[in-house]
């Protein structure tokens, strides 16, 4: 998943061309730094909004759920046999 998330960095690099052309050229370097300061505030908000715990069980397809159930049953039977 990181390989997909890191594309945000690539997009940011492309967006910096826009910041340079529009903000740095017209208003100077300081204005661009302020824009990125505001961007960092947005990062902090996004980090606070991030929910780390997802119950991925809900996202499994029915066939996968069935497969997991079968595996679980087999494991239980094996344990019983061993006992």
């Amino acid at each position, binding site marked *: *998943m*990181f*390989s*997909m*998330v*890191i*594309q*945000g*960095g*690539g*997009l*940011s*690099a*492309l*967006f*910096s*061309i826009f*910041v*340079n*052309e529009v903000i*740095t*050229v*017209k*208003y*100077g*370097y*300081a204005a*661009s*730094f*302020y824009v*990125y*300061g505001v*961007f*960092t*505030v*947005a*990062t*902090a908000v*996004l*980090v*606070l*909004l*991030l*929910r*780390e715990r*997802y*119950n*991925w*069980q809900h*996202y*499994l*397809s029915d066939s*996968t759920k069935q497969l997991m159930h079968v595996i679980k049953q087999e494991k239980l039977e094996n344990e019983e046999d061993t006992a």
Partner: protein
Amino acid sequence: MEDELAESRATLFDKVQTNRSRVRRGVMCLIGGFLINLVAGILNSWGTFTIYITSYLHSKDSSVNLNTMFITFPVSIVFLSTGFGNFHLVVGTILYHKIGARATIAISGSFITFSYLICSFITDAYAFAVIYGMCVGFGAGCGSFTPVWPSWLYFPKRRGLATGIIMFGFGFGACIFGLAFTFLTNPNNEEADVRVKSGGQVTFLFAKHIADNVPWTLRYLAFMYGALTVAAVLLVSDPTVSRVERKTVMSSFVSAFNSVADLQKVNCPSRTVAVRTWAFWDLLLALFFTSGYGLYIINQYKNYGHKHIRNDMLLSVIGSVGYACNSFHRLMLTQLMDYFTFRQVMLANCALQIACAFTIDLVVDNPALYCIWVSVSFMCYAGGLSPFAVECGVVFGHV
């Protein structure tokens, strides 16, 4: 009886010899990995090089200015994301599996070396930006992580240390080659005094006699990169292990991150499912917003500094200190993530970055303070990247 004893002694001696040889080859692999990362690390030096290269291209075409050349670094980063961002899935793995570590490193180093050679003959700004950006970005992306895999096979119990030594070269390369470019192009530390107007801003470039040194500097550096690449290719070697063992080690890179996550829970079933969740877009947007400042300041710290500090060598030194801090911070962060949560690390990083972004304009006239602000900004850039890899493991159950 004596025969049996002699035989067991001989077997023991053989084992010790094999182990010694394995360790020796492992150490050579670490040195080789460090060397190729020195070469790959020049990607981040663009902020130091840009003013000289722009001065040279401006002397050939007066319409070229610092804004024209700004695109080079973003192009490099986009190609780095292609090579490095997907390293364990696409380019790195495919090359490593198909042709081995040596050949992958040779390709990576050749991309960078030949791009410098070709660029030394180019006088068109856009051609320069595209060729330099593509080749350096892709070369750095492919080569920097490749030596880590064989090093894990040599030192299965010291993976963290092996990765640290190899990846340290990435930051150190930017640090030394930034200074080398300055020494070769502007040995007398002359001021950038050619005023060039770009949009509403006045920027400074170097006079023609300094700018004319750029092609030869690029060729000298290409020679150095070539030499380092050859040394790295000779030093790095794949240990003789089975295909299964190799695959296990490579997949353990993923499981190293997975250990952070609770392995008992069900992981995200597929990428398609992940993309439909808020967590994915939250992380992607957070990375988009946080990396912008670092990417911008790495690209512009010297151009901005030249407007206030009239000392070229000092600005190069400031950049090198910043790259060194960036490198150390990368190493430190991997340790910090064991003790603090993603939220704590990122909020601390954001607080530092916000403070730097809003106050850097107040300190730019003071070289010592500017050095501190640039170093902290470079550190924040490193700090805004590595925690995301770990967090992907926590949220989705796999990197």
